C-alpha cells in the first residue's frame, strides 16, 4: 500500500505553537482523507522550527467506487416531482433511471448513481491546499508581494516550500502536484539553515528522515528533547552536578533548534549570593538555559546548560563565551536589583501601592492592602493565627510588587516578598505568609498550612471574590480574566485541607451586607448586596461540587447535601457527604434508601391523585387505637430516629446520624411487608401516608434522599 509524505517548510515557527501544529496537521489531513473514503493504516506528524511534516502510511492508491441508489417519485408522478428528482440525481431524462416495482407502493423510479473512485494523489492535491489555507494557527500573517492582494495566503511565518510525495514502497513515488499561494509542491526540501542549507531530493519518509539527519536536522521533537535531556544530564554528571529539570523549558528549547548541541557555561560564584530562584528565573526567562545544582547539598551551582543549534567549528567556545557574557550581564542586573531592593523596607514601599490601580472600580492596591489587613485580622481567630502577625503579613504581602526584582520578574512575586521580609527581620510566620498568600494557585499547587499564611491567603481570595462579585465581573463560560474560579477553589482547598471552620454566609454577610469590606469599592448606587452574596455562595457550591467530583465523590450525594437549607460550612458539608457515602455502601443504607424511595413513590402518586400533601404529624392516638403493630413500630422508630439523628447532626456526628437512620430499617421493612397503605378506612389511609412522609422528613435530617440515585 502506498504512503504519503508531506512537508511544509517555512521560516521559524514559534516554539510554543509547534506541538499543537503537528497534531492539527495530522488530524486535518487524515480526517479529510477518511471523509473521502481513503482509510489509512497509520499516521505521524513531526515538527521542527522550520518544518511541519506528516507521514501517512498504508493508503489505497485510489478511492473505492461508490454506487448509490436514489429513490425517486412513483411512475406517473407530477412533472414538478420528476424534474426535482432528475435534478437532484444529476440525470438528463427518465430514461436514465430504472423502474422498480414495490408490492405496496407500486412502480417508482430509481436513479443509480455510480461514482468511480478517484486516484489518491488527485484527492490529496485537493485536500492539502485546503488544509494549508485554513490552518488553525493561533496567529498568522501575510508576507511578500502577494500580501497586497485580498485573500492572500496566511501562515505562521512565510511559507517557502511544500514537499508532497505519494507512492508504494517498491517504486519511485510521484510528486503530488498542487499549488498554494504561488508555491508549487515538489519533492525537494532543505537541510539545517547553517550547517547544510542545500537542496535535498526526497522520495519517501525513510530517505527523508535519513537525509535530514545527514543534513543536521532531527525531525522528531521528542527525540530532540531526549537528546537535550540526556546530554545535559551527562554534562552535569561529569562535573559532579545535577540538572535542575524543567519540562516547560525543555519543550521550548527543543522547539528552537533543529540540531541540538548541548554546552555548559559558567558564571562568577559571587552571583550565588542572589536567591537561587532569581538566578533560575533570570537564566531561564532571558537565556532559555538550564541551571544546575550540587547533588549532595541541593545548592545551585555557578554553571548553566545552554542548547545551541550548531556544531561550531571552534567546538562551541565562542558560543559558550557569548552566552556567558549575557548571563553575567543579566545576573549583574539581578544582583543589583536584589541589593537595591534590600535597602528599602517593605513597609516603606506601601505608599507606592496607593498609586497603582487594582481595578478601576475596586480602588488601588493600597486600599486593597488595607482591606486585606482588616480581613486577615478578622480571620486570624478562626484559623488559630496570631491576629497581629496575620495583619502584619497582610500589610506587607503586596509590597514586593513595587520592588525592582518583581518589576523585572513578575513570576517571583510573593517569593521576593518573603526574602525581603526575612532580610528585614520579620517573624518567620509573617515572612512565610507573604510568600504563601498567593497559594494555592490551582488544583495541584501546595496549600499553606501555617495559620498566619492561611489567614492571609483566605483574606486575599475572599477580598478578590467579594470585590469582583460586587461589581458584577463574574466568570462566564470559558472567560475568567480575574481567575475567580481559581480563587474560589483556593478558598475551598484552604478551608477543607486545613479543617477551617468558617461559616461563609455569616462571615461574608458581615463583609458584604454591613459593608465593612465593600466601603472602599465604587459600587453603582443600589447594588443589591444580598443577592450578590447569594450568588457568590452558589458559585462556591458549584466549585465545591467540581472539587469533590474530582476527588471521586458522587455528584448525587453532593447534591443531596446541598439541597438542605443553610449549608455554608464547607468542612461540615464534606464530612456529611463522606458519611452519607459510607452509609449508602452498607446494607442498612441501601435498604433504607430503597424504603425511602418506595415511600416517596407512593406519596408522589397518592398526593397527585388526592391533590393534597400529607405533611404533618401522624395521629398517634389513631395508630394506638386502630393501627397494626408494624405501624406502631414505625411510628415509634421514626420518632426516635429523627430525635437521635437531629441530636447527632447538632453534635456534628454524621456517622451517628446515619446510625440513627439505619435503626429505622427493620421498622420500615416490616411496615412495607405487612401494612397496606391504601386502607379502606380513609382516616387510616391518611395516617399511613403521613407516616411515609415522616420517613421522608427523618431522612432530611442528614440529606435530601430524593437527590440520591440508585
Amino acid at each position, binding site marked *: 500500500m502506498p504512503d504519503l509524505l508531506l512537508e511544509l517548510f517555512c521560516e521559524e515557527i514559534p516554539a510554543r505553537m509547534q506541538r499543537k501544529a503537528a497534531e492539527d496537521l495530522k488530524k486535518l489531513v487524515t480526517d479529510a482523507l477518511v471523509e473521502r473514503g481513503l482509510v489509512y493504516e497509520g499516521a505521524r506528524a513531526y515538527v521542527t522550527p522550520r518544518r511541519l511534516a506528516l507521514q501517512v502510511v498504508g493508503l489505497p492508491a485510489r478511492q473505492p467506487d461508490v454506487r448509490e441508489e436514489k429513490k425517486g417519485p412513483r411512475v406517473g408522478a407530477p412533472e414538478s416531482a420528476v424534474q426535482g428528482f432528475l435534478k437532484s440525481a444529476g440525470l438528463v431524462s427518465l430514461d436514465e433511471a430504472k423502474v422498480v416495482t414495490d408490492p405496496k407502493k407500486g412502480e417508482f423510479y430509481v436513479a443509480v448513481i455510480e461514482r468511480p473512485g478517484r486516484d489518491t494523489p488527485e484527492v490529496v492535491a485537493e485536500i492539502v491546499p485546503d488544509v494549508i489555507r485554513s490552518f488553525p494557527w493561533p496567529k498568522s*500573517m*501575510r508576507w511578500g508581494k502577494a500580501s497586497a492582494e485580498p485573500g492572500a495566503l496566511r501562515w505562521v511565518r512565510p511559507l517557502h516550500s511544500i514537499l508532497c510525495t505519494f507512492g508504494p514502497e517498491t517504486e519511485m513515488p510521484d510528486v503530488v502536484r498542487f499549488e498554494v499561494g504561488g508555491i508549487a509542491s515538489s519533492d525537494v526540501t532543505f537541510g539545517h539553515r547553517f550547517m547544510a542549507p542545500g537542496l535535498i531530493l526526497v522520495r519517501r519518509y525513510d530517505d527523508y528522515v535519513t537525509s535530514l539527519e545527514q543534513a543536521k536536522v532531527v525531525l522528531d521533537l521528542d527525540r530532540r528533547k531526549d537528546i537535550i535531556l540526556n546530554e545535559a544530564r551527562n554534562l552535569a554528571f561529569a562535573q559532579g552536578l545535577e540538572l535542575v529539570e524543567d519540562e516547560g523549558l525543555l519543550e521550548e528549547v527543543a522547539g528552537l533548534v533543529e540540531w541540538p548541541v548541548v554546552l555548559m557555561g559558567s558564571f562568577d560564584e559571587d552571583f550565588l549570593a542572589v536567591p537561587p530562584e532569581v538566578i533560575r528565573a533570570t537564566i531561564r526567562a532571558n537565556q532559555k538555559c538550564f541551571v544546575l545544582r550540587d547533588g549532595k547539598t541541593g545548592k545551585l551551582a555557578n554553571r548553566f546548560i545552554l542548547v545551541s543549534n550548531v556544531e*561550531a567549528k*571552534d567546538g562551541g567556545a*565562542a558560543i559558550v563565551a557569548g552566552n556567558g557574557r549575557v548571563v553575567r550581564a543579566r545576573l549583574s542586573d539581578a544582583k543589583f536589583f536584589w541589593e537595591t531592593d534590600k535597602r528599602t523596607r517593605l513597609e516603606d514601599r506601601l505608599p507606592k501601592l496607593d498609586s497603582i490601580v487594582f481595578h478601576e472600580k475596586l480602588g488601588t492596591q493600597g486600599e486593597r492592602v488595607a482591606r486585606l489587613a482588616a480581613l486577615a485580622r478578622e480571620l486570624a481567630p478562626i484559623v488559630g493565627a496570631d491576629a497581629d502577625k496575620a495583619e502584619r503579613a497582610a500589610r506587607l504581602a503586596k509590597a514586593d510588587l513595587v520592588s525592582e526584582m518583581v518589576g523585572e520578574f513578575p513570576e517571583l512575586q510573593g517569593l521576593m516578598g518573603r526574602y525581603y521580609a526575612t532580610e528585614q527581620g520579620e517573624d518567620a510566620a509573617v515572612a512565610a505568609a507573604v510568600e504563601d498568600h498567593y497559594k494555592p494557585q490551582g488544583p495541584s499547587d501546595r496549600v499553606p498550612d501555617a495559620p498566619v499564611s492561611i489567614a492571609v491567603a483566605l483574606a486575599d481570595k475572599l477580598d478578590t471574590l467579594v470585590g469582583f462579585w460586587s461589581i458584577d465581573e463574574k466568570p462566564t463560560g470559558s472567560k475568567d480574566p480575574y481567575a475567580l474560579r481559581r480563587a474560589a477553589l483556593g478558598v475551598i482547598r484552604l478551608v477543607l485541607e486545613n479543617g477551617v471552620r468558617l461559616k461563609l454566609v455569616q462571615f461574608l454577610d458581615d463583609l458584604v451586607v454591613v459593608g465593612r469590606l465593600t466601603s472602599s469599592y465604587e459600587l453603582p448606587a443600589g447594588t443589591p448586596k444580598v443577592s450578590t452574596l447569594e450568588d457568590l455562595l452558589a458559585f462556591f457550591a458549584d466549585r465545591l461540587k467540581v472539587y469533590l467530583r474530582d476527588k471521586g465523590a458522587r455528584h448525587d450525594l453532593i447534591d443531596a447535601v446541598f439541597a438542605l437549607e443553610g449549608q455554608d460550612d464547607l468542612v461540615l458539608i464534606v464530612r456529611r457527604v463522606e458519611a452519607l457515602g459510607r452509609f449508602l455502601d452498607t446494607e442498612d443504607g441501601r435498604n433504607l434508601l430503597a424504603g425511602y424511595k418506595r415511600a416517596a413513590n407512593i406519596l408522589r402518586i397518592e398526593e397527585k391523585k388526592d391533590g393534597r400533601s400529607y405533611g404533618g404529624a401522624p395521629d398517634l392516638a389513631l395508630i394506638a387505637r386502630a393501627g397494626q403493630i408494624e405501624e406502631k413500630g414505625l411510628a415509634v422508630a421514626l420518632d426516635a430516629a429523627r430525635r437521635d439523628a437531629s441530636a447527632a447532626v447538632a453534635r456534628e456526628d454524621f456517622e451517628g446520624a446515619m446510625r440513627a437512620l439505619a435503626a429505622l430499617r427493620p421498622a420500615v421493612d416490616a411496615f412495607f411487608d405487612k401494612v397496606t397503605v391504601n386502607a379502606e378506612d380513609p382516616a387510616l389511609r391518611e395516617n399511613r401516608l403521613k407516616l411515609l412522609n415522616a420517613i421522608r422528613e427523618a431522612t432530611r435530617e442528614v440529606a435530601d434522599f430524593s437527590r440520591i440515585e440508585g
Partner: protein
Amino acid sequence: MSAAERMTDSHMSPARSFQGLILTLQRFWAERGCVILQPYDMEVGAGTFHPATTLRALGPKPWRAAYVQPSRRPKDGRYGENPNRLQHYYQFQVILKPSPKDLQDLYLQSLYAIGIDPALHDIRFVEDDWESPTLGAWGLGWECWCDGMEVSQFTYFQQVAGFECAPVAGELTYGLERLAMYVQGVENVYDLNFNGGEGANKVTYGEIFLQAEQEYSRHNFEHADTEMLFRHFKDAEEECRRLIAAGTAGDGDNDRRHKLALPAYDQCIKASHVFNLLDARGVISVTERQSYILRVRELAKACGAAWLATEGGGM
C-alpha cells in the same frame, strides 16, 4: 573576499569601531538597493517612528530604505551608571516593502558582513510578536539572537496606524550599541571604541555620551517641567488634528489628495515623545497612561489615513 575580511585590518572594521559598524551596515544595505537616509530630525522612541518607516510602510508603493535613528527612551536613563542601559541610543533600521522572499538570508548576510560568522556563532530566530500601541501597529517576527543575546528585531509589518499593510513590509532593527559591544568584545557600553583609533587617537562611546546620559537622566527624571510638558502634549495633539483637518481635500476640490500629512505626523511624533517624558517623570498614573497611549494612537491613525491620501501613500 567578504566585507568582514576586507575590513579586519582597518580601523573602520566593525570589530574595531562603532562608526565602522554603522558604515558597514549602510554599505551592505546600500548595495542591496536601499536608499540610505539620515536620522529623522525629531526625538523618537525607536527607528520605527521615522516617517520613512511608519508612513512609507503604508500604501502600495515599493520602498527600500536604511538609516541610523537615534532613539530616546527617557525612562531607560540610568545616570550613566548601568553598563547596558541608555536613555539615548542608536538603532539601525532597514525597511523593505514588499518583504523580499530572502529577507532572512539578507539579514544573515548582513551579520556576516559585520563579522558574525554563523559557523562560529549560534544565531537564532526566537518568537517575538511586535506591537506598538501608540502607533496602532503590529507585526509578527522574531528577536534575533546571537549566542543568547538579542541583537536585532525582525518584523513583518501587518498593520500600521490601524491600516493593513498591503503589501507587507519587512523591518529589521539592529541595536547598534549591543551589537558593537558584542563584536568589539566589550562589557560596558561606555568602553566602546567609537572611531577605531588607538592610544591618543581613540575616542570612546563614553567620552561622547556619558555626560549626556547623566544630564539627560537628571532632566528626564527630575527637572523636565511637567506642566510645560502637559501643555506641549495638548498643543501637539491639537496642532496635529488641525493640520489633518486643514490638509483634507474639501468637497469642491478636484485634487482629492491630502496636503499636510507629513507635518501632521511630526506633531504625532512630538506628542509621543512628550508622553514618554511625562511617563519618566512619574506623573502619569496607570489608568491615565492607557488613555494617553490611546490619544497618540488616534493621532497616528489620522496621520496614516492622511498619508494614504497622498502621492507617497499611493493616491
